[in-house]
């Protein structure tokens, strides 16, 4: 088991984003979380990714109950165990691909030589070995998202969480990105993708549908 959430409710003011959600993610799974916009699927991902804390309920990460952890401890857990991929890529502007990928390692306290070696290897893995010195502005959307994936993988996380990773891409680049996730899952990575597109969700082995803050079907 990688992540287990139990009876999780999340309130934003008076809005109920999640209501009593219980879910378990096992090692090696490839899960798609789908649902219409505003259904609470992003909130679910933020809570699974320890970016946000539930109003009610409990979240276990690898057998560790997380409600007692402070912000710094959560940050360290994210750093070591979770890789994030966002719809907006969220790469640092005017910063090379190589430096962008190294970012999590900097906060892990890894020495610069080791960081660079690992970052090069990871960018090679996503097919960008020729773009190491390129800044985001010099890369296409698909390439930027691959840099983001390399960044998510650099710390060898237990799980990769992707929030609408193809939302800003044309369908061809989107498929390429999903192929990368598929390959990573084949290699044993646990992958969770949040999407509202059925054809993207089709890549996953397990599809969770969220509606009005509740898991309605699996």
């Amino acid at each position, binding site marked *: 088991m990688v992540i287990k959430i139990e009876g999780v409710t999340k309130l934003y003011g008076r809005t109920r984003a999640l209501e009593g959600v219980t879910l378990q993610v096992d090692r090696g799974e490839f899960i798609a979380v789908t649902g219409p916009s505003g259904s609470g699927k992003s909130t679910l991902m933020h809570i699974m990714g320890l970016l946000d804390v539930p109003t009610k309920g409990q979240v276990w990460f690898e057998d560790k109950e997380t409600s007692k952890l402070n912000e710094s401890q959560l*940050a360290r857990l994210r*750093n*070591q165990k979770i890789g994030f991929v966002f719809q907006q890529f*969220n790469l640092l*502007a005017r910063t090379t691909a190589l430096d962008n990928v190294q970012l999590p390692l900097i*906060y892990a306290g890894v020495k610069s030589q080791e960081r660079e070696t690992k970052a090069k290897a990871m960018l090679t893995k996503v097919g960008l070995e020729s773009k190491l010195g390129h800044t985001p502005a010099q890369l296409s959307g698909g390439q930027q998202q691959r840099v983001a994936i390399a960044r998510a993988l650099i710390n060898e996380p237990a799980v990769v969480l992707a929030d609408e990773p193809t939302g800003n891409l044309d369908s061809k680049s989107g498929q390429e990105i999903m192929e990368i996730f598929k390959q990573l899952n084949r290699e044993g990575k646990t992958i969770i993708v949040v999407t509202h597109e059925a054809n993207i969700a089709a890549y996953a082995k397990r599809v969770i549908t969220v509606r009005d803050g509740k898991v309605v079907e699996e």
Partner: protein
Amino acid sequence: MISGGSLIKVAGRSLVTNKTRSILTTLGIIIGVAAVILLVSLGAGLQRQITQQFEDLGTNLLFVMPGKFQFRDSREGGPPGVAVNKLTTKEADLVAAGEHIVATLPIASTNATVSYQGEEVSTFVIGTTPEYASFRNSPVEQGRWWGQKDVTGNKLVAVAGQTVVEKLFQSSDPVGQKVTVRGKKYEVVGVLTSKGGAFGNDQDDQLIVPITALQKQFNITKLSYFYVQVDSNDNLDRASAEIKAILGKRLKEDEFSVVNSKEILATLQQILGTVTAALGGIAAISLVVGGIGIMNIMLVSVTERTREIGLRKAVGATPRAIMMQFLIEAVMLSLAGGVIGTLLGVGAGAILNRFIPVHTPVWAVVVAFGVSALVGVIFGVFPARRAAKLSPIEALRYE
């Protein structure tokens, strides 16, 4: 955990990425530090020069001035000696007979126009005795000093300061020439060694003539003041009492005053110290303003980089790491400003020193630099805390 070195690199890289903004932000600190150093240097230079001039006078001298000398609060008595000048050479001679007193030097003076072959200069004409040379350490570099005989004989002779010589005699030898002082011809017998001076006080802009000649020509019977040379530094107070006793028999208490040069110096030092501190204080305000500038830019930077902060947090930056990054950025900015400002201030001081006395005290550099670093920390904390407190999802959602 992220290492301190990496944090510094992260902060440094982010400053280099925004070069123009970084430079403009430091400008406030640069100007503040440079202004503090330069103004304090000017004050200290002035203080030093005045001290030097007093030390040239010798420390075993007293001045006797007409009227009540009130340096500390001149509003009460008006300018010293204006109304009740009763000092004459007679008083100076009487004082010279005192037990602890070596000699006295009478000084009478007036402003007059001096001319030579069509050239004219308005200068300070001093009537005194030849002892002026030793009292004021003012030898001639050309010609000779006129002597006691010239005084007793009412001779129309003069020694001229460098400034007067330069203005009247372009290249010709002044010694032996006759200059006209308000219609009377004086023979220039010597040229004084230059003493320099500044701030409107040119010690070379003077013509020194026998006191008898000056008194007769200008009908001056009173002295501006006279110097008293005391036999030893230790006897200054005793000599002062002695002078008061001697003159007290002839004059009222408020018709003369005995002033110790050390007292004048101490008072001047105090005034100049206050002026220097005030100048430094005004300049320090610009340092604070510079600090507020840094805070402004850092706040803007935090807002502008909200998404970046969110991302850094998502990939594992602790609140402390974010806080330190922004704090280090602010401190680096103000330290860079401190370094550049110090160089500018010291450099400008060195250049100005060619024209007016400037002395840059080490403490001014240390204080200005230290304050600039402190300003970075103080004004960096608020934006850094704001950055550290951002919630990662709020920050990532920020458009």
